[in-house]
């Protein structure tokens, strides 16, 4: 299989297990697909076979949820090896991971846990990203995560941390606009200041998803439509940074595929109009 064509700067949806059969049967007119890498780590079986068929017809992005880039435990070489084999098998256009940690002391929490924005954490996560890029033999994109707590004694803002990671490692950024909104609301910063601190040329993809409000706390559930405030922030982000491949993510209470396609159409209109306004 030759390398996937690059992802077009157009809106797509994250492909989850309940929709795979429908996508294979109907071949929806979507520009590309993204899947969670770990769901295809097996060396065979029906899930991988379906992904290979999808990859034959659409550009593909692999999005990891379990690499634990920021953990102080040793890098899970077995995990990296499985990702590398999957990359060799499907030749994706893009490979991304989360700028977070997921476990420590040999215990995984299988969640996206926040890093402190310190020089030590920056050094550590940059070295790990460089190591992963070396082992994979390719560049990855890293995604900003939602956080419900912050650590005292931060040496920089989250946006500065993200920007410095990209500059130092040469990795790309997957900018999750919903996560920026959630964190701005939960931690009381200006989402537009955040976007302004992000190096435009490092951004290779946007993510959009829905959150739940629990009192004053916003929880990044990936279980709801994209909120109006997030559409608005997305519009301002595209105007500043430019159009990029954009993904609608929905992971809990997954609705009919048509609902996701409708969300992608909205994102597509914004990509086209915000770009035109900026141009």
């Amino acid at each position, binding site marked *: 299989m030759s390398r996937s064509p690059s992802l077009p700067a157009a809106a797509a949806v994250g492909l989850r*297990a309940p929709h795979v059969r429908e996508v294979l049967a109907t071949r929806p007119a979507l520009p590309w697909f993204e899947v969670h890498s*770990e*769901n295809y*780590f*097996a*060396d*065979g*079986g*029906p*899930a*991988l*076979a379906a992904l290979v068929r999808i990859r034959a017809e659409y550009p593909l992005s692999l999005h990891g*949820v*379990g*690499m*634990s880039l920021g*953990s*102080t435990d040793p890098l*899970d070489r077995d*995990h990296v090896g*499985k990702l590398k084999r999957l990359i060799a098998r499907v030749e994706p256009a893009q490979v991304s991971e989360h700028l977070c*940690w*997921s*476990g*420590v*002391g*040999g*215990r*995984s*929490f*299988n*969640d996206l*846990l926040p*890093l*402190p924005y*310190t020089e*030590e*954490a920056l050094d*550590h996560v940059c070295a790990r990203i460089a190591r992963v890029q070396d082992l994979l033999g390719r560049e990855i994109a890293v995604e900003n995560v939602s956080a*419900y*707590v*912050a*650590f*005292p*004694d931060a040496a920089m803002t989250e946006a500065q941390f993200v920007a410095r990671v990209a500059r130092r490692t040469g990795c790309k950024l997957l900018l999750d606009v919903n996560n920026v909104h959630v964190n701005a609301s939960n931690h009381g910063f200006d989402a537009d200041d955040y976007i302004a601190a992000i190096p435009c040329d490092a951004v290779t993809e946007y993510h959009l998803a829905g959150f739940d409000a*629990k009192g004053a*706390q916003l*929880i990044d559930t990936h279980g709801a439509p994209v909120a109006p405030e997030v559409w608005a922030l997305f519009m301002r982000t595209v105007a500043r940074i430019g159009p990029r491949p954009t993904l609608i993510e929905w992971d*809990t209470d997954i609705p009919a595929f048509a609902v996701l396609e409708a969300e992608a159409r909205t994102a597509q209109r914004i990509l086209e109009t915000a770009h035109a306004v900026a141009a």
Partner: protein
Amino acid sequence: MPSLRDLQLQFAAALAEPASPRCAVTPGDDRLAIYRVNARANYRNALAATHPVVKRLTGEPFFNAAVDEFVAAHPPVSGDLNIYGGHLAGFLEHYAPAAKLPYLPDVARLEWAIDDANRATDVPRVPDAVLAALSIVAPERMPNVLLVLDVSCRLVASEFPILRIWRANQPDRSGAERVELDEGGILLLVRRDADGVALESLSAGEHAWLAALARGSTLGAAIGAALAAESAFDLGAALRAHIAAGTVAAVVDR
């Protein structure tokens, strides 16, 4: 300011054990409850996806409580949730609230075997090559050969009718069907074929024979195990059937 390592260990301890010493986060470590709730939901969803029949048999509240206890007893070590859950059957054997459902651990075992078979490496089936390899083994060497099973093969044995229980609790079934627990146990071969995972009921001899081969016993020792389990075990029929189906994937004569 603690080191990143200490900070992560402190954070992890606070997540796993809410009563552990406070973790220095803002606005307060009560917010860690959001992570606990998220993680709990992740594990419940992941194990419901691999064990849908266990969930249907026990109902959501029971299942969720069992998963929460399971996660505490067997903390995940991998970032890949797809390979977490193989110990659920063993856990359920000693989970007191499940004591009235003695078949439940075996149902969990069957569901994990199905999931595991689905994730096995793809290997092309070559029954003709296996037959050819067997045909050139010298007769006096025959007891010493090893028959290698396909990598997707899993054997599940239960004293309960778990295949009937499993079938009666598939999504397209009402669940109203009655299965008598004392109708007898079952010996199952779980393996992947071209159409997905196939479940095949085995005789006592076939099961003992395949189990011995799976352990790496020689053909001679496997025949001995089969005959001990079932005096009428028919080696010729078993060989033909399991080579044709792809269960026996290779012959090693050394």
